[in-house]
């Protein structure tokens, strides 16, 4: 079982489609693998529909929380920075894990661009924000995390994702109400690679990437890839997974923000810090103050919404 932590140029493919499990696995591997200099680990995974936001983002600004709840689309916060993505089975995730010194985002993206352009006759290119674009459409979202001994760069590849769902899920109804210093996503129009070349599928892309990954790293043994069954590693990853699933991590680590509601009568300002409502400012809110202060914002979110409509209806 411990062979999963072996270093060297390797490819691991996760069988799980649960975003929390996969993020936990990614972190577990990053922290525990015996990274060898000048080698890379490629982790390939995909998730059932979910929205993944960056470490210091605000979920309310980045997505439609209510819609996610209704459609049972998972919401996760990852450990790396950057913006918010929508994942589903048409979206392939790649993580390249190396030692801190070998971290090189551009090289990783260059490998993908060269491989896909050659195999599928595309004209992908890399922007200076380290995104992969096809014409004016974004096809990947990247983020990285650098620790003392290791670093990883992960990015998504839109193959055949449901772009309508993507747009709907990432459409925030609250962003105009919120002022904060959280990282905000830089939004771009997106495109599936299969829209450009209909022969592209998850399976053939996977195969292609695995083969060229080894070539890129000058590894002769091109069959050194393994499927990971996350259940086998549940003991090791459960703590991380639990943290990722917890409302605490998802909602309460949001950087402080102020949620403002405006109506004919007054402007209400709700200050939230560490997920807790610490203050409400407004003209006549005595009852509301008692009700809300000290509460977790995400728990009373529906009631807060009612504040908007209640007042508006008057």
């Amino acid at each position: 079982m411990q062979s999963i932590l072996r270093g060297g140029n390797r490819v691991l493919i996760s069988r799980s489609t649960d975003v929390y499990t996969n993020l936990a696995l990614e972190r577990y591997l990053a922290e525990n693998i015996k990274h060898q200099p000048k080698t890379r680990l490629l982790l390939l995974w995909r998730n059932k529909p979910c929205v993944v936001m960056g470490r210091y983002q605000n979920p309310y600004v980045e997505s439609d929380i209510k819609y996610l709840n209704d459609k049972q689309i998972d919401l996760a916060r990852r450990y790396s920075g950057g913006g918010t993505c929508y994942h589903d089975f048409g979206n392939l995730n790649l993580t390249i894990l190396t030692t801190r010194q070998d971290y090189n985002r551009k090289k990783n993206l260059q490998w993908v661009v060269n491989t896909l352009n050659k195999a599928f006759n595309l004209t992908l290119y890399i922007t200076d924000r380290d995104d992969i674009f096809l014409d004016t459409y974004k096809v990947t979202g990247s983020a990285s995390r650098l620790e003392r001994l290791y670093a990883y760069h992960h990015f998504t590849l839109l193959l055949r994702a449901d772009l309508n769902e993507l747009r709907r899920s990432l459409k925030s109804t609250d962003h105009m109400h919120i002022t904060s210093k959280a990282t905000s996503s830089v939004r771009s129009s997106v495109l599936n690679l299969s829209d450009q070349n209909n022969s592209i599928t998850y399976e053939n892309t996977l195969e292609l990437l695995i083969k060229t990954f080894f070539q890129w790293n000058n590894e002769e043994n091109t069959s050194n890839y393994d499927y990971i069954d996350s259940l086998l590693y549940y003991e090791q990853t459960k703590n991380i997974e639990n943290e990722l699933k917890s409302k605490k991590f998802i909602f309460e680590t949001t950087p402080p923000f102020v949620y403002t509601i405006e109506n004919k009568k007054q402007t209400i300002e709700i200050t939230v810090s560490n997920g807790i409502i610490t203050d409400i400012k407004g003209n006549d809110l005595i009852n509301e103050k008692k009700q809300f202060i000290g509460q977790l914002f995400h728990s009373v979110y529906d009631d807060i919404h009612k504040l908007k409509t209640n007042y508006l209806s008057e």
Partner: protein
Amino acid sequence: MLTRYASNNAALRCVTYSLHMLKRPPSSSYQAMSYVHSLQKPTNTIPISSINNSILHFDSRPFSLSVSRLSSVVQFKLADIGEGIREVEVKEWYVKVGDQVKQFDKICEVQSDKANVTITSRYDGAIVKLHYNVNATAIVGEPLVDIRLQHGIEVPATTQSAPVLAAPVIPEEPVKTETLNKIPSPDILATPAVRRMAKDLQISLNDVQGSGKDGRILKEDLLNHKSAASKPPPTASPPSPATVKSTPTIKPRPTTTTVADRNEPIKGIKKAMVKTMTQANTVPHFTYCDEYDMSQLVKLRKQLKKQNKDIKISYLPFIIKACSQALLNHPILNAHVDSKCENITYKGSHNIGIAMDTKDGLLVPNIKNVQQLSITQIANELNRLQQLGKAGKLSTDDLTGGTFSLSNIGAIGGTYAVPILLLPEVAICALGKIVRRIVPDEEDDESSSSSSSDDEYCSYSVRSMMSASWSADHRVIDGATMARFSNELKYLLENPLQLLINQ
């Protein structure tokens, strides 16, 4: 620039030196900072020793240091994150002031666009100051936190990562005992009670050997001292160097009082100079020297002064203009190289910098677009910059954008020197003093070859010679280029009419 004076060899007309790159690790983050940028930053009083590249050696004499006396506070700078990233946002602090940290403990998390980086501590110690609030922008290479080191001198555990010997600046070494030494030492450890007691007993703490921790003087020491007062003074403690067998003929050391050292932190422009010089030192320089015959220019200047008594013109504007003219044919000398020496930018304008000793120290303001200016215009610009320099009012614009530099050190004195480049430029010149010398005339043709054996009868004249020492970036400039440029400049200076008709 730092100029080192080589010996003047009058017979030597051309000398080429090649400086080997000193074996020092390159600075981790390259910043082509102008002096003005560092002026705008709040300066901290940090000991010089906490700069990355300094390595201090200690002699074998052991001494003990206590944290309270010589505790060194190190400024832990934000290390280069890579990818050319200059600044990041501090997202989360994992420590607060007062916390104890060990090497490799997490200090904070920073974010740059899409990369999150965990910054870990390089030292063991206590957090003294956090330089940024959450969401503030931290600059790579600038202090992130201040850490008071646990031990007086920090020796890094790992060999690879960041060996910074942050040794405290020691104003006076703690005296173990040399009773002849009557230095008033302010750093004697003793509790107030012990001090009081010493006062009552009329014992000078200087005279007492402390037996407590770190040489601390205890009550017992005072009592022992009192009883031992009648006895001969205690000898030096064992670790001191061996005593010398004195022979009767050797005279005793004259009684002197050591003058106290004066310690001052390096701040402001001096600090910027430390930084830029250290950086420039990583570039392999070579120096090429030559002498230019300024006699024609001397004549010209005398003429100008006769025509217009009020004119204030020195040689420098002529030299500057001549350099610009020569640069037209040698554009590589008016270029910038990037820090990794991967790209060379041939700069269009000739923005010639002139090193000045201003009110604030050594600064190099530059005259913009010399290629378009007349000599009079250059003279006026030079004057303007000198006036501003004297008043300490040079602007950022004046101090940045330079492409080529000159140092008229000869105005103060000197002949040959080895100037240090002002990065990212690739060439610099140190101009020596114009000295009148006897120069044998050139042998013009073969007709005089018959008399070549009678050297003492060759003709000579007194000429005004100015030595010039060029330093250039040997990664991109070769000796031949420098020599050709110098020859062209020489031609222009020795034949000023050529300079004037080609303006």
